[in-house]
């Protein structure tokens, strides 16, 4: 799997850390801006639409990144491609999507006993991110 390949060069971790952090900063800001843009425009009952949107988009993006990576570099020795993968996959996609907001949203809905929305939100998120990831993965592989 891709993950194991990323820590193949343990001596060059410092640059990797900065690259991953830069991707994470960009992903978090993009998520923040998209949420600010969507929050008063899209309403779908009590569903946390903004969190659902970033998670679906980011999972699709990660699918395309890993699909492209698997297709283009079967040898796995390309340091530049590794750096790119770390920036895009762990940094950008990892930070753009969020689990903590999903968990807090669900907890919030549970506290208000809105069980139908909980069921819909959990199903749409889990089935959606897996489908989006697979879609992106097979698209570029």
């Amino acid at each position: 799997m891709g993950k194991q390949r990323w820590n193949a060069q343990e001596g060059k971790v410092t640059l990797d850390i900065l690259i991953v952090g830069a991707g994470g900063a960009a992903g978090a800001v993009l998520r923040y801006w998209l949420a600010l843009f969507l929050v008063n425009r899209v309403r779908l009952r009590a569903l946390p639409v903004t969190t659902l949107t970033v998670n679906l988009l980011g999972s699709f993006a990660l699918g395309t990144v890993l699909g492209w990576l698997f297709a283009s570099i079967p040898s796995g020795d390309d340091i530049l491609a590794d750096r790119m993968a770390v920036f895009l996959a762990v940094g950008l996609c990892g930070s753009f999507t969020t689990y903590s907001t999903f968990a807090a949203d669900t907890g919030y809905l549970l506290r208000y006993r809105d069980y139908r929305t909980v069921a819909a939100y959990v199903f749409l998120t889990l089935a959606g991110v897996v489908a989006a990831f697979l879609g992106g993965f097979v698209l570029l592989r």
Partner: protein
Amino acid sequence: MLSIVSSATVAAGGFAGTIARFGLNQISTSSAFPVGTLIENLLGSLLLGLLIGWLAYRTMPEPLRAGLGVGFCGGFTTMSTLASDLVFLADKAPGFHSAMYLLGSLLGGIIFALFGLWLGRRWGSSVGMRKRGKSRWTS
């Protein structure tokens, strides 16, 4: 409203959260089970719950709130890696491991978030002065 200061603190929080996640991944990739992602998602849910619960009684400057909640907790946890883990785990080790990972992430994350909310509200309401008015859940 787009705030430049809040965008900067979100970037800083995302930078720190992602590096912390990357570091935990480096430690935990020796096992086939994606234990790193699981720990990050549970811990991040607890932290965000604590923050939101605390904010039900307290206030903090908006850039700090956004930096910690949207930036750090959002950057520390990840849904996209969870999706890819689920797909690869279903391919590699279907059955028990996949089910444990899915249930551990889902139920564990919600339980940790609820525990964090409860603890944060307790903490926010018990020490010093309280904020007046209706409690606020949303971040």
